[in-house]
């Protein structure tokens, strides 16, 4: 269709909007961010994903100006932002608690930042009206924050932080306080608004589904370090470590030792089981410890032994999780290892093919799993 795919991180001539260069942040002896270097490009929707305490919020607060790096520099548009106080940065933040001013109306909340720039009054009115329209809040303009619902408050917070048309918008767990259904709708709304305004968004979240849905690239963090920065699809399909594979989505990790054969590896993982077969670009030596990460939806489950499957093994169904659209089976191999397999429930009212204690065959192709060095 002639549309160029948005992938500035693959374009060596693209200039990043934000550059972290060897940034370290310490609180006393505690290292919150450990010597990190990475780039964020203009118009990206960049997600910082990780468990609580991994340093993702510290990263964001350094961008906002509430924390300064202990070592290293952060560049915004090529300029070191360390000496710029938060009120002078072209960066706005949407707070996790929304931090709406309770004594001001929705209108005044959105106008707050514009008034600080001593913008002429008609311009303020036009801009606030635009923001109210963007977030569908026109009829709530005169209400106070405690007079509107949680979802509306979230939109006020977004409108307020977007009103000043920042170069960069930071979102700290923006949907944390919303219930599941509203959260999904709001995720799409956020993406829509991000596209409309062309603002660069950096979102902090511990919810992997949220990060995968909204982001153009996801940085998976652990213990003050970014483990992998990549597109959601690559994070999911080609994780670079057991940590990332395990953190994102559901996965079975089989550990064993590798033996190169033909264009792949045989992985001995359990006594009395045939070796696992995996094709991979990962370089492994003979006898090296490794892990095969395999997603449940890549594992087929059948009653009879499948012919010419690269990997096939028999087990007993231990648990079934019925999720409506999907069913996840926990199948136990004779040696005790549990492998997860998922099937889509494409037919309504079909007879359940498998039930607890059934003996079944699991199989997957030689490219279905991700081979990771141990």
């Amino acid at each position, binding site marked *: 269709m002639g549309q160029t795919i948005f992938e500035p991180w693959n374009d060596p001539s693209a200039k990043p909007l934000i550059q972290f260069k060897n940034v370290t942040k310490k609180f006393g002896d505690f290292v919150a961010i450990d010597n990190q270097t990475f780039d964020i490009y203009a118009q990206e929707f960049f997600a910082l994903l990780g468990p609580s305490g991994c340093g993702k919020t510290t990263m964001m607060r350094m961008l906002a100006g509430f924390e300064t790096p202990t070592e290293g520099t952060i560049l915004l548009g090529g300029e070191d932002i360390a000496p710029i106080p938060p*009120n002078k940065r072209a*960066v706005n933040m949407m*707070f996790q608690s929304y*931090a709406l001013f309770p004594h001001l109306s929705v209108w005044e909340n959105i106008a707050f930042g514009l008034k600080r720039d001593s913008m002429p009054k008609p311009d303020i009115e036009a801009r606030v009206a635009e923001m109210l329209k963007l977030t569908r809040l026109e009829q709530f303009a005169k209400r106070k924050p*405690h007079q509107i*619902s949680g979802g509306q408050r979230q939109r006020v917070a977004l409108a*307020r*932080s977007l009103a*000043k048309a920042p170069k960069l918008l930071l979102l700290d767990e923006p949907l944390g306080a919303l219930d599941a259904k509203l959260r999904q709708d709001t995720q799409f709304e956020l993406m829509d608004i991000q596209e409309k305004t062309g603002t660069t968004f950096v979102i902090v979240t511990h919810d992997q589904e949220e990060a995968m849905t909204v982001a153009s690239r996801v940085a998976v963090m652990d213990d003050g370090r970014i483990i992998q920065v990549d597109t959601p699809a690559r994070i999911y399909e080609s994780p670079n470590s057991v940590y990332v594979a395990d953190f994102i989505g559901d996965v079975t990790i089989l550990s064993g030792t590798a033996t190169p054969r033909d264009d792949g590896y045989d992985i001995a993982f359990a006594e009395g089981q045939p070796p696992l077969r995996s094709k991979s670009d990962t370089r492994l030596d003979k006898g090296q410890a490794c892990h095969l990460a395999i997603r449940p939806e890549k594992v087929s489950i059948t009653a009879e032994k499948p012919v010419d499957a690269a990997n096939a093994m028999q087990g007993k169904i231990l648990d079934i999780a019925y999720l409506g659209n999907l069913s996840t089976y926990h199948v136990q191999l004779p040696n005790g290892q549990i492998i997860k397999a998922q099937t889509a429930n494409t037919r309504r009212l079909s007879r359940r093919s498998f039930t607890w204690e059934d003996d079944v065959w699991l199989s997957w192709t030689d490219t279905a799993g991700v081979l990771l060095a141990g």
Partner: protein
Amino acid sequence: MRRLSWFNTTALTLGFAFLYLPMVILIIYSFNESKLVTVWAGFSTKWYGELIQNEAFLNAAWVTLRVAVISSTIATVLGTMAALVLVRAGRFSGRTLFSGMIYAPLVMPEVITGLSLLLLFIGIGLDRGVFTIILAHTTFSMCYVSVVVSSRLVSFDKSLEEAALDLGCSPISAFRLVTLPIIAPAVISGWLLAFTLSLDDLVIASFTSGPSSTTLPIKIWSAVRLGVSPEINALSTLMIAIVAVGVITASLITKRASLKQQADERAAVHA
């Protein structure tokens, strides 16, 4: 309405009796016709009339009012600043000493506070008068303001201030535009508390006042030593009335605000 058990009824009656019986008797006798305080001789408001003509009392009332307004205002500013430092500044060296010094007047016997202030004023050669009473009252009421304000600041969401900074406020305008309006109820009640404390202080005022600056409590105290007159009863009744009106108004305002907020929140949930 739930009926109270006999135990609750008794407790309530005793409580109210201990708290308010003396005041009720004082109010009743302020309308006594007789000059003898303890003998009832019929209803009259003549003592109130005489009170208005008593120049000494009126002067003392004027001094008291000025002292209360000025000292409570200064105490509110200083107390709020102290509270901000205690709650916000984290652990600086000398913090424990500072907080101890702020809260010391809460537990210090008034006589000692009064005496030490008196020695200070004599030491630095300050003539005692309205000014010294204001200083003394500021000193001891500031800690009450600081207690009230810091309890509000503890529950104050700091991200509100960060949001203000993020949207382009300098730290000072963030305080003026966001923090102050939100903690205003605590600051106002701190001011009211300081005002009331200053209004009825006798001990510290008697140490730090000069001949030209008698406050109302001192005046009443010295008048009572010559014998209780119905005029004093009338004066006290007026003071009770002023304080009661103030307290009731303040609590009504708070209650109405919270009721309105609850109703709004219910409406928002159903909206």
